[in-house]
């Protein structure tokens, strides 16, 4: 009986702990939103963070995009040519990249490349008491350190997702048209007739913006609330990547259901 009660108590503690963290996260988000507009006055800091988060992620995004597009072209061609419709390769690749793969894979890579770096940086600043020192000098670390990195994620990720999709389509063109020999005109015209600007491209962009908010929030939150030890910072960095990836995938499912359900 006692062990049963222990189990129930453990379950309750686990759930209240999770709820507690969720509530802290929501309050952190609200506090962040309150100081978001004034941070745009310090525009240079925002640009510096866009440089670190966005520009430095450009190489991995372009290369991954190219390779994802090339692999999609090869595998898509394998299946499509069985039905004698290899020309539809353009629309297959473009739709899967623009709607799903572009925003999602870019967000996953961004969480690993930039989100983890932001968490480690803020966590280390907290561990070395730089944030506390700022507070003493009446400089709000939320406005000075946290908000610019959050804004940078929201600005960078949609741009990176667009570049990822473009690179993927170019990769698919290289493999499909130049290597396999699908007709170039059919490749592009099939793509244009099936991809809608509002429905596909803009919805993909909205997804990327939401992912930017999610990844940015999780990275700065984990960094700000990391235990001020080497171990604490390292586990916070891991948590950023794991939680960001999971939230991106779950959010993607929810948004896909809302955007594309009942399309035809």
């Amino acid at each position, binding site marked *: 009986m006692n062990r049963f009660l222990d189990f129930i108590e453990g379950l309750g503690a686990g759930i209240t702990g999770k709820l507690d963290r969720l509530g802290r996260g929501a309050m952190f988000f609200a506090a962040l939103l309150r100081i978001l507009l004034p941070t745009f006055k310090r525009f*240079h800091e925002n*640009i*510096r963070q*866009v*440089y670190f988060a*966005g*520009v430095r992620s*450009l190489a991995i995004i372009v290369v991954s995009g190219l390779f994802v597009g090339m692999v999609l072209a090869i595998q898509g061609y394998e299946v499509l040519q069985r039905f004698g419709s290899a020309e539809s390769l353009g629309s297959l690749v*473009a739709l899967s990249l*623009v709607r799903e793969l572009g925003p999602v894979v870019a967000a996953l890579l961004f969480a690993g490349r930039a989100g983890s770096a932001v968490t480690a940086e803020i966590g280390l600043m907290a561990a070395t008491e730089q944030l506390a020192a700022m507070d003493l000098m009446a400089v709000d670390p939320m406005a000075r350190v946290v908000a610019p990195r959050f804004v940078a994620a929201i600005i*960078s990720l*949609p*741009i990176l997702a*667009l*570049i990822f*999709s*473009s690179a993927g*389509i170019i990769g698919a063109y290289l493999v499909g048209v130049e290597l396999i020999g699908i007709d170039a005109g059919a490749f*592009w015209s099939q*793509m*244009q*007739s099936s*991809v*809608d*600007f*509002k429905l*596909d*491209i803009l919805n993909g962009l909205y997804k990327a913006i939401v992912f930017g908010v999610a990844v940015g929030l999780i990275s700065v939150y984990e960094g700000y609330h990391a235990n001020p030890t080497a171990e604490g910072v390292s586990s916070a960095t891991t948590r950023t990547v794991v939680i960001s990836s999971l939230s991106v995938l779950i959010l993607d499912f929810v948004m896909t259901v809302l955007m594309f359900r009942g399309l*035809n």
Partner: protein
Amino acid sequence: MTRSRTNLAVGFFVALGMAAVVFMALKVGNLASFDNGAGYRLEARFDNIGGLKVRAPVKSAGVVVGRIEAIFLDGETYEGVVQLRIRPEFRFTSDTIAAILTSGLLGEQYLSLEAGGDPRYLIEGDRITKTQSAMVLEKMIGQFLYSKASESSGDRK
């Protein structure tokens, strides 16, 4: 100076993003080839629309002249009502025939318009009266089998 180099890199990054948007809009998407909202709207009623979908092309002589805007069922006559938007530069006579055809054997279905010789032209909100429903493969096979069966029973006599 590091700050200007950062600005340069970020500017380059944003420009690349804009280039990606332009690439998406013009080369990948159909923003350039069809502008939503421009043109006039027509209506056509069919006994059976087959697999016609919203946003399917409207073609005349094989050239795209517009898009399907909406498809719904008239609850009183049980006809499928198709609303289409035609680009303003194309005008069609009031005896135009609208037919639902399939591109290729298994391709997508589209609406074909064939202009007649009437001097009057269709304008915004008009209805195309001469329509030809979509071919339904099962019905065609059924008719074929039926005619084959009556043919062979006629042979026996």
